[in-house]
Structures are given as structure tokens and as C-alpha cells.
């Protein structure tokens, strides 16, 4: 008879790390229909917007889509079906010209030219290239660039055939950004609002993460319940809580159960009181 070891062997690295490079196999498709619609919009060269509250997985969705499009294009030899996704992190760019240079640089073209030449590369894209271009701009509304200028630049890009744009941002800021740029807002085809995860989706995500490190058997059902309760279905919050529980469980040499999750994420009475009053917590 084989005995089940009571004390689990925990790996040294955290499977729930927030900054871990996300692999496609750990991604959970939360709204498959809408993701499909987004991909359809990209292949048609349209403008789409992804919004949702903090930590809901907007950036993860963008990265996932970029990776998937890239792998699909690498596997086909049909040029007209190839889509080249360019991922830009809006917060890193201060000026609209930087966005332009960023796109050219990501495509590994010579970016040491003046902005008119660079812009012409993009506007004459359908004439010179059969492949489609998808500019995925993460945190577009949070960038430091001039809002009017960036809006005008994106509008000009949106008018070019075969160039798709995906904007991603927090709902309030995105609304503000689009309100200031009505021509761009009019060109938007699909808007995806990411919702909170259900318990099963959250469990699937955490289990997938745990599986990459081979620790999926060490987490009990009660722990998933508790993590869902704590995070209210926000993946980032769930990962953070799971990460804390992992540290505690490794220290004590136990499996992750409801009790461990509770103890690892316990907030003192006073801290809760002050959080309720909306004061800043200094721990």
C-alpha cells in the first residue's frame, strides 16, 4: 500500500507570483465569446477597446491575444492570413512620436528616420504589405502623451486598412480619453468589459498555476472557497492572497486549506476599521 505523504514538499518558488511571465497554458478564457469577437475585430482591422476594474486581467488578456496571434501567424504560410501583433505599454510613452517609433521598432524596421517617413510606412502599409498589423496598446488612457495628439494619431491609424487597434484601460479613464476624442470613439467596433471571475474560473486559474509547479494536490476545496471570498473574483487579489497562503503553508509544512488562507490573509481589527474609514494604512 502506498502511503500518502502528510507533509507536502513545497517548491522554493511561488507558483502564484504576480510578476511571473504568463504562459498561455495558465491563462483562463473567462469570456470566450467576447475574446472571439475581439480576435475577429483584429483580423478585420477594426478598433476595439478592453476595459474592466483593477486587477481583472486586462493586460493579461492583451498579452495572451498577442501571443496567440503571433503563434497563429508563425504557423501559417498564407501571407494574407498573417497578423503581426505589436504590444505597446502606454505608460512607458510620454509622446505620440514615441508610440510611432515604438511600433516601427517592434516590427524590427529602421526607426532612425524622421516622423513623416515613419508615419508614411504605416499609412502605406496595405500597399506594401499583405500582412495585417495589430497595435495592442496597454493602458492607452494612462499614457503621458497629449490626449488630443494621441487620439488623432490613433484615428489616423484606424483609417488605414489592415491595421487594427486594441486599446486597454481602466473604465473611467478610458471614457474620459474617448470623450475627448469623438472621431476615435466613433470608430470603435467592439467594447469588451471584463467581469469578475466566478468561483470555478478562479479555481481553474489557481489550479493551472499550481500545476506548473506540481503542487495542485496540496490545495483543498475549502481554500478555494476562502480565496474566492477574499478576492471577490478579482484574479490579481486572489493570486496575492494565494501567494501569502503559500508562504505560510511552506513555513509550517502543511497543505493549503481554509485555515491557512484565513491566517495568512488576516487583517487586524484596527486595520479593518481604518480601511473602512478610508484612511491610508501604514503597516
Amino acid at each position: 500500500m502506498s502511503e500518502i505523504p502528510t507533509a507536502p514538499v513545497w517548491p522554493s518558488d511561488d507558483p502564484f507570483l504576480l510578476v511571473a511571465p504568463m504562459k498561455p497554458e495558465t491563462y483562463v478564457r473567462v469570456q470566450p465569446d467576447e475574446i472571439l469577437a475581439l480576435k475577429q475585430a483584429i483580423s478585420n482591422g477594426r478598433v476595439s477597446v478592453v476595459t474592466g476594474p483593477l486587477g481583472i486581467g486586462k493586460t493579461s488578456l492583451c498579452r495572451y491575444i498577442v501571443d496567440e496571434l503571433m503563434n497563429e501567424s508563425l504557423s501559417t504560410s498564407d501571407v494574407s492570413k498573417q497578423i503581426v501583433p505589436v504590444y505597446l505599454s502606454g505608460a512607458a510613452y510620454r509622446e505620440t512620436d514615441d508610440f510611432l517609433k515604438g511600433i516601427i521598432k517592434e516590427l524590427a524596421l529602421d526607426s532612425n528616420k524622421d516622423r513623416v517617413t515613419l508615419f508614411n510606412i504605416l499609412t502605406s502599409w496595405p500597399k506594401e504589405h499583405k500582412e495585417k498589423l495589430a497595435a495592442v496598446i496597454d493602458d492607452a488612457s494612462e499614457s503621458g502623451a497629449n490626449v488630443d495628439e494621441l487620439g488623432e494619431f490613433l484615428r489616423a491609424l484606424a483609417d488605414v486598412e489592415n491595421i487594427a487597434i486594441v486599446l486597454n484601460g481602466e473604465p473611467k479613464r478610458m471614457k474620459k480619453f474617448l470623450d475627448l476624442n469623438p472621431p476615435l470613439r466613433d470608430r470603435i467596433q467592439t467594447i469588451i468589459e471584463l467581469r469578475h471571475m466566478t468561483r470555478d474560473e478562479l479555481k481553474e486559474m489557481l489550479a493551472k498555476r499550481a500545476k506548473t509547479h506540481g503542487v495542485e494536490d496540496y490545495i483543498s476545496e475549502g481554500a478555494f472557497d476562502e480565496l474566492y471570498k477574499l478576492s471577490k473574483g478579482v484574479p490579481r487579489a486572489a493570486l496575492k492572497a494565494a501567494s501569502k497562503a503559500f508562504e505560510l503553508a511552506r513555513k509550517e509544512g502543511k497543505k493549503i486549506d481554509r485555515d491557512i488562507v484565513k491566517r495568512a490573509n488576516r487583517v487586524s481589527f484596527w486595520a479593518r476599521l481604518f480601511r473602512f474609514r478610508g484612511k491610508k494604512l501604514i503597516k
Partner: protein
Amino acid sequence: MDEKILSMKEAAKILGCSVRTLQRQHLAGGLRCVFTPGGRRRVPENEILRLKEEMGFGLKTEATKRTLRTKPKKRTVSREEPPIMPVSKEEPKKSEQIPATTTTQALSDFEIIERMAPESLPMRKAFNDLLATAAMLETFTPKQLLERSNYPEQTIKSFCDRLVAKNFASLENDRYTLKVRLFR
């Protein structure tokens, strides 16, 4: 410990200079001071005797001499610039020769990818990303590239093969070492 300790004002009177001068001297390191618990400077008597011997006229101690000496030196350098010029002209020549001897070329990522001749635009983009990762690692295995990116194995393999074929990297025991430096 019977040494007499004077206040700054007294010391200035003996030396025939202002209190401010002494303070400046102290900051420059030319005057050793003691501090009272209240943080005021006091000057030991032997320090005053040393200064008197050392300077004769004015307060040119070793520390101030050092600072004064540097200024005229700078001027002479600027005046003698023409004779120095040939020396500085030679220097860049030497630095130009260095990359040739160590065989590390500096190329922009655009040029490297152009020479690797990717067949398609997605391939080009993949090579660009992989090159950035490779440049960060310097020596790498295909497995490391696979872990750090989400590209298929086949793409990574052709990337590594082409790096070696175009003499941008060397292969030793399954480990690739970049021979080029990227400049941006």
C-alpha cells in the same frame, strides 16, 4: 591636556584675519578645530602656532595652496590645448582598434535582423523579440529562450541556427554566445 584653547575671535585676532577666513579654512581642512558641546569651534593654541609658522603672510596653508594650485593649472591646460590635440586625436584611433581585436561588433538590432533574412513579417518580429532576450542573456540555450518567450520551438531553433550561420553567435556544448553588441 593643559593646552590652551582659544575662541575663533581670539584666534582671528592673533592671526590677523577674519573669523570667516578661519571658518573657511576649517571647512577646507587647513585648520584643526575642537567643538564645544554647543557646536562652536574652538582653536587649540598649537594649531595657531603651526599656522603662523606655515604661512608667514596671509593664510595660505597646504590645503588652500592645493586649491589655488589647481586653478592656474586648468588655465595652462587650456592654453596648451593645441599641443595636446594630436594626443587626443590618437586616442579614438586606439579605441577604434579595440573592437577589431576583441571581434565584438556593435550593430543595431535592425541591421542584425536584416542580415538574418527572416522570410515573413511575423518571423521578423519574433526574431526581434528573441534577439532582445538573447542580448540580455549573452550566453543562452534554446531552452532558456523558450522559457522566457512564448514562441514555438521551431522558430527559436531557426533563430539560433541563423545566428550561428551569419556568424553573430558561437555554439559550444549547446550554449550559444553572442558575438555582437547591440546599440540602440
